[in-house]
């Protein structure tokens, strides 16, 4: 029942967003901002096209590698800083300041090092995603109640058994939260990189469309990305809630 209400609320929000879009379209005129109907019509035509597929594929590949890096490095740092208290205490404020920094500032450096290549965009995406993964993994490990360690010892569990049966499940919900935020920010980083300087990918497609005054194409790509991000987030949130509520 709660789930069905959530679905209803989501539908209401979507309808309100569409109405707001339509109203804005009436306000500023059709050439600047096409309404939802022509945009969706364009979407139906554009999405199956080869040009869209090529660019979407480029973004996906880049995002996939960036995510792999974010998760790999983030988890490694998070586990290290969670277990080794001193490293955590030393590193946490540094990571927090990096987290709040506008990382776009550093993109020219990445470009100077890697050039306009896939590896540059991957690096920039990973720069965004790695921090929340590391910070939340560290906090998950630090927040394990000490009673778990005591219980493990009274139950005579081996080190490996302790990790598998207690520490891993205890930290999982918070780590998954970190992975969700890491997903979001990695995507943001990849798209920013593509918008700033790239010859392919959905981010560059938006910028090209803007420069060529193809408002429909610009909005179409934005809508597709919006839907992708929102759906992926909903899925990851759902997993997170399941992990929190398991008994």
């Amino acid at each position: 029942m709660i789930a069905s209400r959530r679905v209803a609320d989501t539908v209401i929000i979507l309808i309100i967003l569409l109405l707001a879009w339509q109203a804005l379209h009436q306000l500023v005129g059709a050439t600047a901002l096409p309404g939802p109907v022509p945009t969706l019509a364009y979407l139906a035509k554009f999405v199956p096209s080869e040009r869209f597929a090529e660019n979407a594929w480029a973004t996906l590949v880049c995002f996939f590698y960036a995510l792999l890096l974010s998760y790999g490095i983030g988890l490694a740092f998070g586990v290290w800083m969670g277990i080794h208290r001193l490293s955590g205490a030393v590193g946490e404020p540094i990571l927090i300041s990096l987290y709040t920094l506008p990382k776009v500032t550093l993109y020219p450096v990445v470009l100077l090092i890697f050039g306009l290549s896939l590896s540059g965009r991957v690096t920039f995406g990973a720069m965004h995603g790695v921090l929340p993964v590391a910070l939340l993994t560290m906090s998950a490990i630090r927040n394990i109640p000490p009673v778990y360690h005591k219980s493990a010892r009274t139950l005579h569990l081996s080190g490996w058994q302790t990790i598998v049966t207690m520490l891993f499940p205890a930290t999982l919900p918070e780590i998954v939260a970190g992975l969700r935020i890491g997903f979001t920010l990695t995507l943001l980083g990849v798209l920013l990189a593509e918008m700033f300087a790239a010859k392919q990918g959905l981010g560059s497609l938006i910028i090209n469309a803007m420069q060529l005054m193809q408002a429909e194409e610009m909005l179409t790509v934005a809508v597709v990305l919006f839907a992708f991000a929102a759906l992926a987030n909903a899925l990851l949130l759902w997993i997170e809630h399941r992990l929190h509520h398991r008994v």
Partner: protein
Amino acid sequence: MSRVGWIRLAVLAIAIGLLELCCRLGLIDQRVVIPPSEMAVALVRLLISGEANEQIVRTFGIVLLAALISVVAGFALGAVIHALPRARQSLDPFFATYYAVPIFIFYPVMIVIFGLSAIPIVLMGVATAIVAMIIATLNGLDRVPQVLAKVARVHRMGTIATALRLKLPAAAPHLFTGVKLAVSYAFIGVIASEFILAPAGLGRVISDAYTDFNNRQMYALMLLLIIVATLVNMFLHVVDQRWAERRGIAKP
């Protein structure tokens, strides 16, 4: 300073020293990264010459404006939404999804509507920051203990006095967390927009310097942005922590 603090300082100093050394020894090409000491010198020269003053004022002014709008409007919207529980419930999926969507994909849309001016940049700053303030406001108002309403009636206080003298101070530390987030998000929103496309501003100047291979200018301004953003964020973070500590609020 604590031992941990000294170690942190040492780690940062070693990192900067290593970068300096690698640049000086030619392990890192100076066409890619210039030594940190030269970045600092270039920044000081740039600040003294005053060439970039206009851009600096413009960018930080826009950040301030966007943060201000976000805090005021975010608080007002948060208070209204808090008073309407049904609307709030419906908005829950919206808030849960908001920061998952890379909102910069709508920056070109803003440019098409408002033209290439400061307006789309302010709007992007507000768009990145305001929802954090709304969420913090809801969170803060949720944590106002119910017993305060009873205390207010025992002291025969009116609605406005109760809101200003009891509820607002009770929610204040959580609201400040919102202010902290709003400022750092406004920074990110404004700078990123300026990088993507802008008529002027630090982001634009850095990106131009990159295109012109003017490394000194680029690194000097980059350093400036990083220093200012870090100092502002650190200041807000420390105040936030102090406040939470004094009020006995556990902060992640």
